[in-house]
């Protein structure tokens, strides 16, 4: 008779983190809670040997290397950890995939401050009508730049983290700066 396997601590944390990420990405603009207040939680849940990762934050390097992922340039990376974003230039090279291969668009994790700063209006899949939220800590012109770079379904998907809270902005979301 089979014994039911027990969910370990790592497994439970990764499961909770992924649940939060999936919830956040399917409901853009609404925050959900990660298992820990760090990008390491996201790395543990998503990254392994099949990934190419770019990180602007050297503190994440040990986790990335432990996961077995290849550390690569921004343009080749499928997961990009930019920490707190200072300039827009670093967005240009991020892989956006193509209409033929939308799955090659990268997942980008940024550190922001939620519920203060610039007000933006979200609409699109996952948002019932429109949703107004406030995000601080992104450079000026970030959302305009994002709109110009994307040609749906090509684009990259954003996770904006503030402590344990994370919100997802998938490429399908239309962002209007108020």
């Amino acid at each position, binding site marked *: 008779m089979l014994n039911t*396997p027990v969910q370990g601590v790592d497994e439970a944390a990764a499961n909770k983190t992924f*649940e939060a990420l999936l919830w956040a990405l399917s409901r853009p603009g609404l925050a959900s809670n990660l298992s820990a207040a760090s990008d390491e939680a996201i790395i543990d849940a998503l990254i392994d040997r099949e990934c190419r990762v770019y990180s602007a934050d050297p503190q994440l390097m040990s986790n990335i290397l432990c996961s077995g992922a290849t550390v690569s340039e921004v343009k080749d990376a499928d997961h990009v950890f930019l920490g707190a974003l200072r300039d827009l230039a670093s967005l240009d090279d991020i892989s956006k995939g193509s209409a033929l291969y939308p799955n090659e668009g990268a997942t980008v994790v940024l550190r922001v401050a939620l519920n203060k700063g610039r007000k933006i209006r979200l609409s699109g899949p*996952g948002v019932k009508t429109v949703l107004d939220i406030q995000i601080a800590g992104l450079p000026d012109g970030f959302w305009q730049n994002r709109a110009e770079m994307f040609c749906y379904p090509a684009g990259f998907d954003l996770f904006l983290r503030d402590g344990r809270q994370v919100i997802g902005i998938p490429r*399908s979301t239309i962002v209007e700066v108020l």
Partner: protein
Amino acid sequence: MSLKSLTKPWQSMSYGFLDPSAKRELRRKMLKSVAVPGCQMPYASREVPMARGWGTGALQVSLTLLNPQMCVKVIDQGADDSVNAASIRRFLARVSGAPTTLDTLEAHLIQSRHRIPEEFLREDQILVLQVPNPEPLRSVQPNMSIARQMHADADYGRMWLQLYEQIVRSGRIMQGASYPSMVNGRHVMTPSPIPRWDVPKLNMSKHLTILSAGREKRIFAVPPYTRVEPLVFDDVPYQVEDHGALTCKRSGAKGFFMNEIPQDDGTSAFEVSDSEYGVKSIRQRDGEAVNLGGTWYKHGEMPK
């Protein structure tokens, strides 16, 4: 870095059967499929102790999502008690310790083959659909490289032509299940072989739907509050099955999707296809206190 930090304690089986790297891959692909609603994302479908084509894709999604607090319901063609549904449910519970239920309202995760429950799904519920053929263009374009290009170009003219030909030949659209539907105004997907009756339930729904084809190694999703529009012509409205006026002979429930049961005298009797909804209706009729949720269809019609 030491050898100890790189290894994990021995276990007879990974939690939830799948190994951590398989789960991570599914997690990444699930996120991508949610980010581009209706677009098929390739993934490396792993071996599970079930034959491909019996729900292995949805099973892998369920195994990735499951935790010991998540209540799981499995449906096969509306029924909770068919062999396929019962064995998948037992397997999920065995490898994850997750509680199981038959009640749609209690479940957090619903794995389904070819039906969407009649009761509303909530925001905190996830519906996982088993998909035998994820490519809506296959009947008009068997070459999948060309089909991919057609999806990239949003070139769906042949889908309309196929529907038009059905109307010319038969006087109505003959597509019964897997009715091609436009998601978010961009990608045409097959909603898995759910009847036409169920397709409007996906439109602007509160729950997340993940569709996974294990044999074909494709995964796609319909996030909450996403437009799902069946392909129709302006002058030929979308029609669901003509079940609105039928009554279930066992439970007396009326206005839901029914199974037709042939009788000895050549006539047909009908039973509500969502078995647990039927059971709850019977209990209510017998005077038990049951929690019947609100349903998508009211009096056999989908409110506009």
